């Protein structure tokens, strides 16, 4: 008897909680699609008081493990909000500001960084992202932490003509470069190691500038 009661209470709590989450979802979702689309996200951003291009939205997407850029499915929404432990807009607002800290953990950050790239792959079987988008992404994701590197790297990427697109391997190494290489002297950079060629070229370009 007791058990049943407990169960029912728990399930009620669950459904009640889920209901709130689902309601929240529905308030932004495109009913025809059955998921939140770019317009919905924009609305959500404005309600959260966060700019659409703010990195926190990207982090939010990462937490949701959202697969498609600009869209959140029901499942993603539910899983994400559950992970955050929130079920209302106000709680969500608070959680989002906390997210930046969470992502700051080195193990999380690497994961987030890769995610940011994959999030940009819109076509099926797409493996690389165009330079323009990469530059924007770098600015959003990395500039706060590694401003001088990002500024110069973005400048270089726009100027060079060897590469029209960047793949995941190169992307991941951008982060490693910022973390490991002393800047701006680049003293410990060794081109004979397995750095992607684009970074070898970048370093050469930087050394010529100096």
């Amino acid at each position, binding site marked *: 008897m007791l058990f049943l009661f407990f169960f029912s209470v728990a399930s009620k709590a669950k459904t009640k909680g889920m209901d709130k989450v689902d309601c929240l979802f529905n308030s932004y979702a495109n009913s025809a699609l059955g998921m939140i689309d770019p317009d919905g996200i924009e609305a959500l951003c404005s309600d959260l008081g966060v700019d659409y291009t703010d990195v926190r939205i990207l982090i939010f997407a990462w937490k949701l493990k959202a697969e498609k850029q600009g869209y959140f499915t029901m499942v993603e929404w539910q899983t994400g909000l559950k992970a955050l432990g929130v079920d209302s807009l106000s709680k969500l607002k608070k959680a989002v500001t906390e997210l930046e800290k969470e992502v700051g953990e080195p193990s999380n950050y690497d994961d987030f960084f890769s995610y940011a790239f994959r999030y940009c792959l819109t076509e099926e079987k797409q493996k690389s992202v165009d330079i323009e988008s990469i530059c924007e992404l770098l600015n959003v994701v990395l500039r706060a932490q590694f401003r001088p590197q990002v500024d110069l790297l973005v400048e270089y990427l726009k100027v060079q003509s060897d590469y029209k697109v960047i793949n995941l*391997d190169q992307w991941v190494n951008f982060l490693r470069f910022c973390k490991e290489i002393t800047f701006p002297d680049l003293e410990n950079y060794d081109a*004979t190691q*397995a750095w992607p060629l684009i970074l070898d070229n970048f370093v050469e370009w930087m050394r010529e500038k100096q």
Partner: protein
Amino acid sequence: MTMNERKTIDLEQGWEFLQKGITKLKNILEGLPEPQFSTEDYMMLYTTIYNMCTQKPPHDYSQQLYDKYRESFEEYITSTVLPSLRDKHDEFLLRELVKRWANHKEMDRWLSRFFRYLDCYFIARRSLPPLNEVGLTCFRELVYQELNAKVRDAVISLIDQEREGEQIDRALLKNVLDIFVEIGMGQMDYYENDFEVTMLKDTAAYYSRKASNWILDDSCPEYMLKAEECLKREKDRVSHYLHSSSEPKLLEKVQHELLSVCANQLLEKEHSSSERKLLEKVQHELLSVCANQLLEKEHSGCHALLRDDKVDDLSRMFRLFSKIPGGLEPMSSIFKQHVTAEGTALVKQAEDAASNKKVFVRKVIELHDKYLAYVNDCFQNHSLFHKALMEAFEVFCNKGVAGSTSAELLATFCDNILQKGGSEKLSDEAIEETLEKVVKLLAYISDKDLFAEFYRKKLTRRLLFDKSANDDHERSILTKLKQQCGGQFTSKMEGMVTDLTSARENQANFEEYLSNNPNANPGIDLTVTVLTTGFWPSYKSFDLNLPAEMVKCVEVFRDFYQTKTKHRKLTWIYSLGTCNLIGKFEPKTMELIVTTYQASALLLFNSSDRLSYSEIMTQLNLTDDDVVRLLHSLSCANYKILNKEPSTKTISPTDHFEFNSNFTDKMRRIKIPLPPVDEKKRVIEDVDKDRRYAIDASIVRIMKSRKVLGHQQLVSECVEQLGRMFKPDFKAIKKRIEDLITRDYLERDKDNPNIFRYLA
């Protein structure tokens, strides 16, 4: 006399008797008039001693006699020998010493005979030093100890005198040094410590002085001559009077002082001697820019010898320097610099003038011959110099020469030799030899694949336009290339040569086919060469609009070919074809040998008198490049088969052309050449593409077998694997690795980004 009857000899008595014998001996040794010992004398002395030793105690005087034996020597030495030595010096001292030593040994010999009983019995029982040792010890402690330093100095002084050219008594020195040896009684300690050490020090000082003088005054060759002489003489010295064990130490010292210490100065020697005198004169006579110009040239010893081809001096230098540890490295390094400079100068010459560019390869071969001879002769085939030669050639053979790589120039050089009319003046052996040298030169070039591709392109023209001079030579060079670079290098070329042979057979079959099927006959003599695609360079086949007559030929052959093989596709490369046309000109009918392209253009004029550029292009369906080239060859070159309007020197799209019915030539049959397109760009593109594939394949191969490998190791293994054909650029390898990562062949290790994993 029996034992019992023997009278006991008293010590005093006995010794007095013995003393007489000893005195007698001394007198003999001193050269005083004294008769020799008779057998009886000897017996008496021996027996006396015997008795004195075998008497019953207390009359057993063995110990006393033993002591007295030593005392005799001591007494003699102290009273007679030492005084005679002390007042002498230098050579006189040495002579006296030798005499006294000889005497001592003699005395020792005699006395031991007398005192033999003691030696055999008493000494053994008491474990005492034997008598000869006693004697020698006396001499050593009394004479040698006091005088050895003085003797040594006297000897060394004589040696130095001999070094200065004086005659000395070598036998005397030998005798003296024998004393040093013998006094050690089997050990060389006395010789080494009391003589050799100082002698070596003195030698070093002597040659050090000489060296510092000579190095200033003498030129390098002069100095080396002197050095060689000195070493010879020192060696001689050892054989005549020094102990043989001194030889290595002595020579080493001399070499060190004359060569090692001065090695750098020798190598860096400023000016050869005659040049220096000239410069001094000029400076003295003319105070002008001229002197400065002469002085501005920088020379150094070894460089000067190489520059002036002084082979004997170089051989001498090698001989001398090879004895010093590390003496050859600087020499080989200068040799390498010199050869590199000469080679680089050839490169520059070729850059400066096109005529020099033509002979560049020949000059490089000559350079190689010259310096290989140096390595074999002057440098006695030493591996260090072989290496230096190789490295020098690798440096300048990989430099570009006026826009062409040496790979290309080498291929052109081969083409010239193997072409008809290329080397008719040379004998077969000479050609073989040259081809041999060319292949050797290829070893120095890192872009071997580039050479192969150029060679293949030129081989194509030789084979297809029947320009090859000699089949045997063609095969011979392929064999040599195969030996040097492996089968893979030559497999395609060999395929090409084989194709030609098959083509002839095929042609015979075709002709048989035609005779069996007279309806099929196109009415034109047709020869087709079927090429196996993989072997031959790729040619773009344009859809040339063939003249009607030729179209039939193509169809007929196609039908024939179908009867032979069903599963092969024929692609026609008209750009490689030739055609014999009969031109009915007013003056006379002539035969024109042209390419298929040219023939197609000319045949257009059978149906039109006048055609514009664009009409020709449309009708032929070729590119502007091709049309310009072929029209130029027919209207602006040596033979003007077509008249061009306007009659400018170049073709422009607004030109018009007419058949030149007035054309003629003194020959009945002429060949109108169509200069080939510059293949260089295409070749380089093709090679780059092949390299990308080769690098990919190599990386995959390595990773497949290693599974996990670090970046640097992967790169170095890749370079090694591909080294036989070309030197892959690090950047190119990196790019291919990236590409392979994108294509999911490889991935980076999660924990160490410098390590790659193979993805099966």
